[in-house]
């Protein structure tokens, strides 16, 4: 078991161009499940591949435990990786696939058999050990890929979108299984996904990346409650937070004929007001919204509408399911929690 430390780690694909990963500083604690999340092209996979040694580190260094592994070959890093397409060896049985890495490491035959058996038991794969990957379902293949990582008993698990090839139902199931398994094994895990729901439900902590820069690392709860900037605020949470630009006048921003009070920002300055759909209540007065669509979920409902002012921006509001609001209605909503961000590209949090 070990922690993982990125120290100013950078990756530049073409010299002079924008780095894919820029001066990343990140510590993954011992036994922690850390999720790297961000839109495609944000550098999350590159970060993982740098840690695996499949991608060179162009600046800074990476440590596993006390060991600087920056220039070390992948096989000497004591890691195991699970890929999105599983990368199973199709001509070998499940057992051979799982035991192969140990064989090359010179582990005794009995020991290999024992470890493969243990992993198979853990993953419910015992009856499939003699099958070839071809004869397995997507979920089973995914478990074989996990098993292959587990039998190696590495210091760090690396997972690159391992659930993306599964169908929606299986993905939710496997999500909980992997998270539970990781807690049980207690192996430090770095997990890459583009799905923020996966990130929020699985990770002890979540690191949000954008354009090669680390935006924020925190527990799922804190990312949701206290996003550091407008990007994180918009990325975390489903449906996404409403981010509306406006000008501060007398301690508030007028949106849809309603002055949303903000305590930050000088008069006349431009800011971004962030309001989560679930942090707004229907009321007799407030932001006027024209309803375009009501998404009934049973427990509650989401109203997708446009703000009834010159901006005509889209807004999403969560309401009670039995409210009787329908298409074409006009409703008024009042935010009960407002976040304020800088309106520049960085979008820093102000309150």
């Amino acid at each position, binding site marked *: 078991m070990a922690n993982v430390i990125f120290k100013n780690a950078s990756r530049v694909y073409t010299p002079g161009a924008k780095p894919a990963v820029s001066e990343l500083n990140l510590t993954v604690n011992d036994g922690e499940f850390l999720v790297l999340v961000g839109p495609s092209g944000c550098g999350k996979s590159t970060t993982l591949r740098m840690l695996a040694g499949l991608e060179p580190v162009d600046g800074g260094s990476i440590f596993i435990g006390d060991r600087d592994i920056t220039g070390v070959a992948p*096989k000497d890093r004591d890691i195991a990786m699970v890929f999105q*397409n*599983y990368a199973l060896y199709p001509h070998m049985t499940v057992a051979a696939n799982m035991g192969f890495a140990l064989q*090359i490491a010179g582990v005794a035959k009995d020991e290999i058999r024992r470890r493969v058996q243990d992993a198979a038991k853990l993953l419910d794969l015992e009856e499939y050990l003699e099958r070839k990957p071809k004869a397995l379902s997507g979920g089973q293949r995914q478990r074989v890929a996990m098993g*292959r990582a587990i039998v190696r008993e590495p210091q760090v698990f690396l997972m690159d979108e391992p659930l993306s090839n599964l169908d929606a139902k299986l993905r939710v199931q496997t999500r909980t299984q992997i998270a539970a398994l990781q807690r049980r094994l207690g192996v430090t895990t770095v997990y890459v996904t583009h799905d923020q729901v996966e990130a929020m439900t699985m990770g002890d902590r979540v690191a949000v990346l954008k354009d090669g820069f680390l935006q924020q690392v925190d527990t799922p709860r804190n990312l949701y409650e206290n996003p550091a900037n407008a990007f994180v605020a918009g990325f975390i949470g489903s449906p996404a937070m409403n981010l509306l630009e406006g000008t501060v006048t007398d301690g508030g921003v007028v949106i849809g004929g309603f002055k949303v009070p903000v305590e930050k920002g000088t008069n006349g300055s431009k800011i971004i007001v962030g309001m989560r759909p679930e942090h707004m209540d229907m009321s007799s007065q407030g932001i006027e919204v024209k309803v375009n669509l009501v998404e009934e979920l049973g427990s509650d409902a989401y109203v997708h509408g446009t703000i009834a002012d010159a901006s005509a921006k889209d807004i999403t509001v969560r309401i009670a399911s039995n409210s009787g609001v329908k298409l074409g209605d006009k409703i008024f909503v009042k935010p009960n929690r407002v976040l304020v961000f800088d309106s520049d590209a960085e979008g820093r949090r102000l309150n």
Partner: protein
Amino acid sequence: MTSTTTTKGVLSPRKKKASLPWSGLMFWIIIAIWMIPVAWLVLMSIRPSADILAGLEIIPSRITFDGYITFLSKDIWYGAYLNSLTYSTLNTVMSVTVALPAAYAFSRFSFAGDKHLFFWLLTNRMAPAAVFLLPFFNMYKAVGLFDTNLGVAIAHMLFNVPLAVWILEGFISGIPREVDETAAIDGYSLPRFFIKIFLPMIRSGIGVTAFFCFMFSWVELLIARTITSTEAKPISAAMTRTVTSGGLDWTLLSTAGVMTILPGILAIWFVRKYIAKGFALGRV
């Protein structure tokens, strides 16, 4: 579409195509038409030369195995046959061995001029073989490769290596790069990974490639004949030199023809499964 038809369609995709009631009969008719020249050749090989020249005769009235006996006992015939087998096999092994790493590099790495080089390989096949006759003849005379099976095998690599690289590259690119990376993390060196994991994964591609190399080398006449004289004379060359003072020996010539078709039939038989797979997967 109802659910039953969908399930049926999944179970047997062939069923989706409309099948004609007499398609089975048509198949056999077409095969029969195609087989006429081959069958004719086989029949000729077991009839005496005199009968062949006498006139049209569907069922042979006299049967003789003289052709085969001569073919298998006369050094000039079976020797030439063995020569062709030797250099074709040698060429296949060498072409595939050389093409495998090349195809892997083209598939997995990017290097200066890789795309141009890849296309340039094909241009080697654009010139007629006759263009290369003189250089080969001259070079081989100088280095002592003239009239050797190895020489013919090397000369044929000029055509077969580009072909092999193209076919194999298609198959290799069909294997996800993550497999290579998993092996790297597992601790495999590149050569060991290549032999223990990669080759078994692309074995159908190798089968298809080997088949094509063998067949191209087997049927090639011009170069093989020019750079050999007696020691490494190919079977196809032997066949063109059967006009003797006694005239053509039709039976013997037909026998040689039948024998020449045999390796092709055998090769097809062994790789027929892979060929179909190759059409689906790679670049055949």
